[in-house]
């Protein structure tokens, strides 16, 4: 049965290793309900690693880093148990990490979200949208 996993959930996953691993589901729910697989990003709480682009720090307690380069397909039969649910802000960090490891934003002509924020583009875009919606 498809659809047991939801976007933003963190699952313990059995990969046949010594211990189960934690993955965050990044595939949207339409996908999750249709297919027997999910797209997921590995999370690690290894204390010896620093976060950075492509490896966003989601939480500081315990330090939880998303390894966005290790985005993978997981069959739902290997999803063992829901471990957690990420917030919108944490999922946004993963989304930015995915952009960083794929550089997809450059292909579609979008400024990196953090840079857009620093140069005020986001604010300007919101102002433009607001003006447009007021004009309609």
């Amino acid at each position, binding site marked *: 049965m498809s659809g047991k996993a939801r976007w933003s959930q963190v699952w313990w996953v059995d990969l046949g290793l010594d211990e189960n691993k934690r993955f965050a589901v990044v595939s949207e729910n339409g996908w999750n309900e249709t297919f027997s*697989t999910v797209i997921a990003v*590995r999370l690690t709480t290894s204390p010896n690693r*620093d976060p*950075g682009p492509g490896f966003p720090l989601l939480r500081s307690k315990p330090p939880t880093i998303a390894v966005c380069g290790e985005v993978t397909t997981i069959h739902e039969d290997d999803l063992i148990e829901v471990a957690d649910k990420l917030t919108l802000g944490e999922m946004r960090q993963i989304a930015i990490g995915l952009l960083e490891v794929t550089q997809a934003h450059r292909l579609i002509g979008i400024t990196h979200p953090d840079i857009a924020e620093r140069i005020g583009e986001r604010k300007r875009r919101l102002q433009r949208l607001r003006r447009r919606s007021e004009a309609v």
Partner: protein
Amino acid sequence: MMRRITVTLDEALEQAIAEAHELLGVEADASDAEKFRAYARLGYEQMLEDELDEARLGTYRTWADEPESGVIARAASRRAAARGAYEGS
């Protein structure tokens, strides 16, 4: 007392300003000041992108020797293949 500052542009720059409005995303009849602001913004954006590129590659290097790096990805692929996730592809 206010002082007037005169800036002289060379011809090449004037030509670039005349042509560049589309790339800069400003109106064709935008003022030079507006175009300069757009140039500055573009340059700043590029500088931030370069900084981010450097940080990204530096982060990759620090993670490259993580013991679990690649191991889990391989295990996940093997597992997904064994479950038939890639059948038909």
